[in-house]
């Protein structure tokens, strides 16, 4: 206490000077609008800066606690995930007649022109050949072979497949193929030269191949090419799904699949 008193005595002039200056500034800020606004702006900015810095330090110091909380939450989620049973069974959309079952891709297309994909489950879950396969609502391929527990899938990324599509919701129905070179580019061939295909237009499945319902998105138009004098042009599109990263898939089938298949066969020759 005595030292404090001595310190105050030693700096009495400076303290008096600062006190009088504070009084003067107080009077000034109280009566001068410009000074007041400038003062509040300056002190406000200063306070915001100090508070921001404090917040940064607080966040930094709390990183360890937040990290621990996140790790705990992560462990809980992993535990839940492991204890969850894989969803099985078919969910049917009564209005359209299409049923959906979830599955997982255990081997995706590797970009080679003839590569196939492998998915689970297989026949034990009721899967049959000819079913459409989607990923996040986008056409991915079709089931071409079914084992007891696995299915072989012919992906869009295979030169052996041809898929019926249309440009836009009401455009011409044209075949979609892959050239086996660029995995980010599909080709719509035999597109009539008068058909409109602008960059950015979405290409949907037509449903005519009976593999997919009508209107499943496939990709977006990037460009088109028309040879001189030709009546048809090629349209190039970018797929909406990255085939290299797909893990979760959906199998779809129609309730009257067998009936549709039989009726779609050509009539026997007389």
């Amino acid at each position, binding site marked *: 206490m005595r030292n404090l008193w001595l310190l105050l005595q030693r700096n009495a*002039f400076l303290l*008096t000077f600062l006190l*009088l200056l504070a009084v*003067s500034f107080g*009077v*000034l800020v109280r*009566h*001068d609008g*410009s000074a007041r606004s400038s003062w509040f702006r300056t002190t406000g900015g200063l306070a915001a800066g100090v508070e921001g810095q404090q917040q940064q330090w607080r966040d930094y110091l709390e990183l360890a606690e937040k990290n621990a909380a996140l790790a705990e939450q992560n462990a809980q989620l992993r535990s839940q995930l492991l204890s969850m049973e894989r969803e099985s069974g078919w969910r049917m959309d009564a209005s359209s007649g299409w049923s959906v079952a979830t599955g997982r891709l255990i081997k995706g297309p590797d970009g080679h022109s003839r590569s196939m994909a492998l998915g689970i489950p297989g026949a034990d879950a009721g899967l049959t050949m000819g079913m459409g396969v989607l990923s996040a609502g986008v056409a991915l391929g079709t089931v071409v072979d079914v084992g007891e527990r696995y299915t072989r899938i012919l992906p869009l990324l295979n030169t052996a497949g041809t898929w019926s599509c249309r440009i836009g919701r009401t455009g011409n129905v044209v075949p979609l193929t892959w050239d086996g070179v660029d995995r980010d580019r599909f080709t719509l061939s035999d597109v009539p030269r008068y058909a409109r295909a602008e960059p950015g237009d979405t290409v949907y499945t037509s449903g005519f191949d009976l593999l997919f319902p009508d209107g499943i998105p496939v990709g977006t138009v990037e460009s088109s090419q028309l040879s001189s004098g030709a009546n048809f042009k090629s349209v190039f599109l970018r797929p909406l799904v990255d085939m290299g990263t797909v893990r979760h898939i959906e199998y779809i089938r129609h309730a009257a699949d067998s009936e549709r298949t039989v009726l779609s066969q050509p009539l026997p020759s007389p």
Partner: protein
Amino acid sequence: MNVVRLIVMVVLQAVLLEAVSPFGEWTQPQWALWALFMLPPQSERFTKLGFGFLLGLGLDLMMGTYGHHMVAGTVLGGVLPGLHQLLSPREGYEVTQKPTLRDLGLQWVLALSFLGSLLFHLALMVVDTWHAHLMLGAVMPALTSAIWTTCCCLLLHLLVVPPGRKTKG
């Protein structure tokens, strides 16, 4: 005597002498500073600080510029002991010496008047403009006004306590 001189100068400046400005904002005189400069350099530094504060308060009250002159006066009052020390002769001030032309010479009076006026005008400029982008344009008027105030103080020295006249203790 010092108090009377301070009151008289504050009243004179506020009522009459403020208008002595031949070049407008470039020559804003602060006649009342002369009363502060006439404080004996040997006097207590608290006295100088108090006089500076009262000078500003008086000017603000008389001229209705609340706070502006108080800030500038307090700054000058706080720095004045330092200025006196800075300008002190090698052997220090004698007890009988007054801050006049006769006792301390023209150079001392001019230096004190100019440095003190410059400080006062700069402080006044800061509180008058407040905004950093306006201050640059106000520095030159503050400088010329400080020169003008120095001239005014010199004139008062010559009129009130000329070099040839002995000042009363």
